[in-house]
């Protein structure tokens, strides 16, 4: 196996720990030692976190008041929520595109799938996103606890209805099955007992977590071999004390960040052990991975299928652009099967090869042309179905579908800032341009050779050549990989 070049190693790192970096960044990195680069990636430029916020708490009335509203007021609230969830999607995607701390957003995207949740309430979505972004590289125990106490998750998993007299197991089941241990590591009895511990966890009308002692079951529980008058916090601690949780989370992180098709069990066990003994420090785990020589093995490089959001964000990080209607990004996400804030189910997006079928692949291959040549978009996503249908909010989702449908068969008008991009190649001689562009955009290349790219390029000017070669390189199967 030929050694992996330093440039390729850095591109690999930039993609896995973010959404790719343009050529000048990679070039700047080549003078530095791995430790220095990894440190920078882990910590980011500044320590403060700008919230992704589209609405303030006072803008929306609390949910208890909704019951007393007249039809017109209700409609207004729905309208605010609908527009809000759309805006939140766009705002977060922009944050990913422009972030100076891409790993935080990448990790947040990972947790967004891990702690999958659907709610129509924009404020709840915004809160949960903030919790996830704040703790994305922090302590997993704190992240778990904070997420579990958001109104978004408590309502999505029905814990408002989890009462001493009538326990609702949904929350406890998903916390154990999806958030911590994974299936097959506990019994149905454990779930029943855990559900009792979580009774009384809820939230109030202003969207704050509350512990409602009246409906909490404070009796003795026996769960995972432990016995005591556990409450919800105790229960989460029991799950964290169990090594299986460290293993489950580490394996999932390994598949997401290292290799989704072949998992090295020994490496996962080693990482999980360190993760556990660090007290679940996510940043240390990521440092361990990105510092390891094996992370840069050829078998891992370019073998990850970009998720639709990664693809879109990566493209826009490479070439700066603005869409006339930014909500067209929701359409791309929908067609390709990853609309933020609308995970397919509580287990999140399965990822990997499930992103790819004939139609999604052909759409991916055509997307750069649709965007960069401002072509008409003649593909419709499947409708999003509302979540729980008893409420009055179902109309909101229908309106979201309608608004996306209105974008059908319209040109994707993008204002593309080619100048900055073309400038990156100013020192490259013409005959090396095709290979350099392909080398910068792809971490793996088997088909896009210079002769082939030349055949389809517009060679009339240097600028046109760079543009057309770039679009063609982005229209390859290899560009789907990172």
């Amino acid at each position, binding site marked *: 196996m030929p050694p992996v070049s330093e440039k390729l190693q850095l591109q690999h790192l930039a993609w896995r720990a973010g959404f790719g970096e343009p050529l000048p960044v990679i070039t700047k990195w080549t003078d530095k030692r791995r430790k220095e680069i990894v440190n920078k990636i882990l910590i980011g430029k500044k320590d403060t976190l700008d919230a992704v916020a589209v609405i303030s708490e006072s803008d929306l009335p609390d949910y208890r008041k909704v019951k007393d509203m007249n039809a017109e007021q209700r409609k207004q609230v729905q309208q605010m929520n609908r527009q809000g969830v759309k805006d939140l999607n766009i705002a977060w995607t922009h944050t990913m595109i422009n972030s100076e701390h891409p790993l935080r957003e990448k990790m947040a995207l990972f947790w967004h799938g891990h702690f999958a949740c659907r709610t129509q309430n924009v404020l709840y979505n915004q809160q949960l996103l903030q919790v996830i972004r704040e703790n994305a590289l922090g302590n997993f125990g704190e992240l778990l606890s904070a997420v579990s106490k958001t109104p978004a998750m408590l309502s999505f998993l029905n814990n408002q209805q989890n009462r001493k007299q009538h326990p609702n197991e949904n929350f406890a089941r998903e916390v154990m099955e999806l958030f911590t241990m994974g299936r097959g590591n506990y019994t149905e009895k454990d779930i029943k007992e855990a559900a009792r511990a979580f009774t009384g966890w809820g939230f109030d009308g202003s969207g704050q977590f509350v512990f409602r002692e009246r409906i909490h079951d404070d009796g003795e529980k026996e769960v995972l071999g432990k016995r005591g008058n556990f409450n919800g916090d105790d229960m989460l601690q029991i799950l964290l004390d169990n090594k299986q949780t460290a293993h489950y989370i580490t394996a999932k992180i390994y598949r997401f960040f290292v290799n989704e*098709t072949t998992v090295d069990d020994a490496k996962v066990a080693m990482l999980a052990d360190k993760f556990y003994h660090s007290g679940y420090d996510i940043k240390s785990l990521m440092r361990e991975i990105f510092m390891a020589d094996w992370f840069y093995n050829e078998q891992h490089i370019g073998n990850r299928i970009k998720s639709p959001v990664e693809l879109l964000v990566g493209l826009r990080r490479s070439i700066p652009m603005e869409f006339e209607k930014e909500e067209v990004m929701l359409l791309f996400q929908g067609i390709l099967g990853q609309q933020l804030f609308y995970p397919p189910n509580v287990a999140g997006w399965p990822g990997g*090869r499930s992103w790819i*079928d004939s139609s999604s692949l052909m759409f991916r291959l055509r997307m750069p042309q649709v965007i960069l040549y401002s072509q008409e978009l003649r*593909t419709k996503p*499947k409708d999003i*179905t509302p*979540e729980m*249908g008893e409420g009055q909010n179902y109309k909101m989702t229908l309106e979201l579908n309608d608004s996306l449908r209105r974008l059908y068969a319209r040109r994707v008008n993008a204002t593309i800032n080619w100048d900055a991009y073309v400038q990156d190649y100013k020192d490259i001689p013409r005959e090396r341009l095709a290979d350099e562009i392909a080398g910068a955009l792809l971490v793996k290349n*088997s088909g896009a050779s210079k002769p082939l790219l030349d055949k389809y390029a517009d060679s009339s000017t240097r600028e046109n050549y760079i543009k057309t070669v770039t679009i063609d390189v982005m229209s390859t*199967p290899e560009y789907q990989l990172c």
Partner: protein
Amino acid sequence: MLILNRRRFLQVGSLASAATLMPKFLKAFEKGQLVPPGNKVLVVIQLSGGNDGLNTVIPYRNDIYYKMRPALGIKRTEALSLTDDWGLHPSFTGLKSLYDDGSMGILNSVGYPNPDRSHFRSMDIWHTGSESKDFWNTGWIGRYLDAQCKGCDKPTQALEIDDTLSLAMKGESAKGLAFTDPNRLYNTSNGNYFKDLLNAHASHAEEHNNVDYLYKTMAETISSATYIQQQFKTYQSKESYPNTALGRDMKVISELIMSDINTKVYYVSHGSFDTHVGQQKQQEKLFQQLDEAVSVFVQDLKKNNRFQDVMVMTFSEFGRRVGQNASGGTDHGTANNMFLIGGGLQKKGMLNEGADLTDLQDGDLKYKVDFKSVYATLLNKWLSADDKAILQQQYGYLDFI
């Protein structure tokens, strides 16, 4: 048999010309197995949004029904009479005659244990065929492809008429193909650039290699698009299909069924049936579209002697609650009915007892037939597939086939 000969001629002729343009290793894909006469086909029509089953098959002698639905209940005089106790929604005049001539079966109280009232979760369950506590990433038709198409070169065994592919159609290694218009599919996938890329890619055929997987999918798509378009050209329906989305989709399906294409399953969606508000008008409109499209489709098949080889199945992710709500609609419920339409039905008419309104759970109908049994029956008896492997459990067979 003149038509058949002409069709085969067209097919062979066009394949020959296409073959000269195709990369060598793709030529193998082009020799799709011709379908023997009698090829059984399943057409799935998904009624998205949760169709109200009680206003579809109406218990028009039942006082509870009218009491629970004072405004929404469909009057006995308006319903199309099926039996002494049951009537069909007034929009279904075409389906009523199919029912009368023994081409339709109605299966009642279909559902699953521990029903979920969320659209996306319940649809997931119907698509994957999982238990409601399980989360599967593959669909039942996708796993049929996995089992049936080991070594098949084309994903054309299952086609969805839509821009994007449903979970039901995604298997572990094989996936169906989605398109709305065969000609557009051909045009978008057959760019010379893509073909040149394919030629340049040296496959390592290594299982875990994703770049190979993507190139393989691309090759299959290009060859399938060509194959579908060639087949599509061989037959043009003489029937006039309604000018609705479903009408156009059913026409595409019919034209493909009349060709020699190797497709076993077609999938199409119709909706939205999420009628929380103003149900009457919305359901009426959607039923009318369904009735018209299916009636012409059946007529088309009958005239071409294909009806005995085709089974149409309708389903929805759940039924709706027994009682109407305050907005002239109904909210999410549980068990529901399914239509089975085809010339090869062994049992016709009402296939089982209608919904029991006296035996409710929290105001919802109880399921009597697990939908996985319907899948098992169709997979085993209609498509001759290993239903147990596909559904990962042995479900009882029903006797409509």
